[in-house]
């Protein structure tokens, strides 16, 4: 794998996770799906590097061992 980080990298993991849940709180399923989609796009643009993105897609698919 390239520069994709798959080891712990978020300093306050619990805080981030709570923030993620809070962002979805009270949303209908459709609005939550839309939020997730926007979030993926925002993050992907921040990363930019196409090999990292490709590796991230592969990692998320959980098909590699």
């Amino acid at each position, binding site marked *: 794998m390239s520069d994709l980080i798959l080891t712990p990298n978020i300093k306050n993991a619990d805080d981030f996770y709570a923030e993620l849940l809070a962002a979805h709180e009270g949303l209908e399923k459709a609005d939550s799906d839309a939020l997730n989609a926007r979030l993926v796009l*925002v993050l992907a643009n921040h990363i930019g590097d196409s090999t990292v993105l490709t590796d991230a897609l592969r990692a998320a698919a959980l098909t590699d061992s």
Partner: protein
Amino acid sequence: MNKIFETPLYGYERSPDQDSPTPVRHKVIVIGAGPVGLAAAIDLAQQGVDVVVLDENDKVSFGSRAICFSQRTLEIADRLGCGRRLVDKGVLWDRGKVFFDDRQVYDFNLQPDEGYANPAFINLQQYHFENYFVERVRELQAEGAPIEIRGRNKVEAIGTHEDHVRLEVETPEGPYTIEADWLIACDGATSPARRMLGIDFEGRIFEDNFLIADVIMDADFPSERWFWFDPPFNRGQSALLHKQPDNVWRIDLQLGWDIDKEREKRPENVIPRLKAMLGDDVEFQLEWVSIYTFQCRRMESFRKGRVLFAGDSAHQVSPFGARGANSGLQDTDNLCWKLKLVLDGKAPETLLDSYNAERVYGADENILNSSRSTDFITPKSEMSRILRDAVLDLSEHYDFARPLVNSGRLSQPCTYDGSSLNSADALNGPAGTRPGSACPDAPLGDEFLLPKLAGKFTLLTIDADAPDTLEEDGIEVTRLALSVKDDMTLALKRRYLGDATSAVYLIRPDQHVAARRDSYEENTFRHAIRRACGKE
């Protein structure tokens, strides 16, 4: 209806070929007087090749069909002697707006970069385009060029032979037989030639229906490309509004797959749809309405022996990138100089296989782009719609999302990366002029670069030495000596030198780069010339 549709432009006339006891043999026959067939014929006639165009019809395209013509098409048309007319008549535009649901999400400008003789795009009805090309044919005839268009000459059968083809042609006065050394089939998407030769036409098919309406109205919408995703007046679908000359406006409304075409085409169904889009108070008249189902596909090979396929007969795309006629003109641009060299015995017949390789590459690029646009415009799954809508919502707020919005990636000239005619890149220069690229234009004082590169092999030197002429195995190359100082705007430097301080380019007759290096070296360039003609 506009009179231009109704007037025969190349009415039937009896040809002496019809009275010949044995079939007359021509150098080249072109089937089809659409934009692509006309371009092929003009290109060949300008090079002195005897060419006959056969068309079953005798008029321009019915209804306007193509409206958006690219800079590359205009550059090719310049070389064919009709570019000026197109630009003078066409509507210039470089701006567009994108709407989502009930609001505008952003606007764009296509060509911030200057220094080209031709605009990025013009809008012009296909019938005007064809009309100007026919005018050019008439001019060439007046100059004595060996070119003919035969209206109401319908090709009924094609016999292929080792060194020629034989056609059975039906006319209002009965059939006749005619032969040619080479046949170019520009007979459109339903290509009877393809069928007659028993060739399959496979590929990905995208099935969706679009209502295409050209309306005449005195509206004050600007001449911009307006594209709607999921607007209130066409829920779940897309819409497009674009201006053409003579107060004609193109409207495309996506209708979805499961519709009754005949019913949707009736004015009583079309007019309410248009009113919902334009507003009740806008007065308009329908010029032309049609329903299209678009497909993306190409032939496996554009050459079959002595028959060459070009334009829609060889490949089709959905219209969102304006890649139909525009790519067809790149086909004939690529083909005609090669055919001329082969006819003159200056290049091996296999040079024509590079036409197939290069234009198949171009067609695949067009199909890829057009398929991706279609996937964005018509999401195929729930998640693809969610992602599409997310892109559109973000594009309203953030620049980063705008490049992801895909309402059609407008036709760009194809770069023939990996073509066997290219020599290895030997200049640390700009990517946009690497071997295989179509030369970008650049200003030279009051003039422009591209007209100086037309129709012959050129050695373009920029602050570099080279002989004024060079001949390699029958191929003549002439030098065009320039300096970065010839262009005070520095576009020439930006486009052809980049960080390099000098450059020598070998440029093909179709204005594509065959080789480049920082300085002249005889042996290298002799090899490059041979390579560019399929001799290595």
